[in-house]
């Protein structure tokens, strides 16, 4: 297979817990996200509509937890850093959210990620890194489980991978 594709043997990272990350659901930042994707549902824009729907305050839309993790934790992606992988080599493979409780404006969320598996695909042209992330709110309530699969494109001797 030629030169090593990673800074460390990926299998030594499987099961590793990554440092805990915290993030705040800030109203103006959330509004920017809603405007960007074009969401106009009053439940996300008007606190009164959110309360009428049974929420404490404006809830976050289905994919926003993924954004919060990045927004409040700038800097290099920890997994890429550990593996020694340039950001230009990655693609997003899979993403899943299981929701237990709503997250609303004003909440602080805590993300605890664990590296679930690291598997080669397409004869080693791609490496899939799966993370399992448990999300709690500031009260310690378990509000969601997230799974995320990153695809790393590996350098090829012959022609480049798609």
């Amino acid at each position, binding site marked *: 297979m030629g030169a090593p594709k990673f800074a460390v043997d990926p299998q030594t990272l499987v099961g590793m817990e990554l440092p805990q990350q915290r993030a705040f659901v800030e109203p103006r930042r959330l509004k920017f996200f809603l405007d960007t994707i074009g969401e106009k549902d009053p439940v996300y824009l008007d606190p009164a509509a959110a309360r009428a729907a049974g929420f404490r305050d404006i809830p976050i839309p289905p994919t926003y937890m993924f954004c919060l993790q990045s927004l409040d934790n700038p800097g290099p992606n920890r997994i890429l850093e550990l593996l020694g992988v340039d950001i*230009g080599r990655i693609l997003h493979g899979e993403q899943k959210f299981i929701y237990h409780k709503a997250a609303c404006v004003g909440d602080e969320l805590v993300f605890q990620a664990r590296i679930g598996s690291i598997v080669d695909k397409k004869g080693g042209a791609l490496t899939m890194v799966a993370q399992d992330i448990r999300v709690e709110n500031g009260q310690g309530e378990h509000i969601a489980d997230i799974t995320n699969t990153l695809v790393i494109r590996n350098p090829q001797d012959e022609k480049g991978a798609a």
Partner: protein
Amino acid sequence: MSTTTAALKVGDTPVSRSYGPITRHELALYCGASGDHNPIHVDSDFAKASGFPDVFTHGMFVMARLGMALNAVFPTAAIREYGVRFASITQVGARITCEGKVTAIEEVNGERRARLELTARDQNNDVKLKGEAVVALPQGDRA
């Protein structure tokens, strides 16, 4: 809305929504809005140096729009699970059509739920995202 979703059955396609072409400007805004600052989505020099013909859409931007299409039918409090596989890269200019088809109606802990198969396709009918959602249904008015 609740009466229509209460009456859903396997094979129905309650989720159906199309969006206009994705612009470079939207990709720039999405970087800031999402905190995903990978230059591959906005810097064509970087994208080319990484082996791509041009910048391309954040998968999560398309997932957000597919989520909006789902959310237009099922209130956010009803969404139990939402997951996708990013089947192929979504190019700049893609016009995305989102669809969701009911594949099962089940009862979990006394709650009626629908399982939906979701797709996001571009104007060439290429599948960009393939996913699944589980949503809670209102108690049906049994006919």
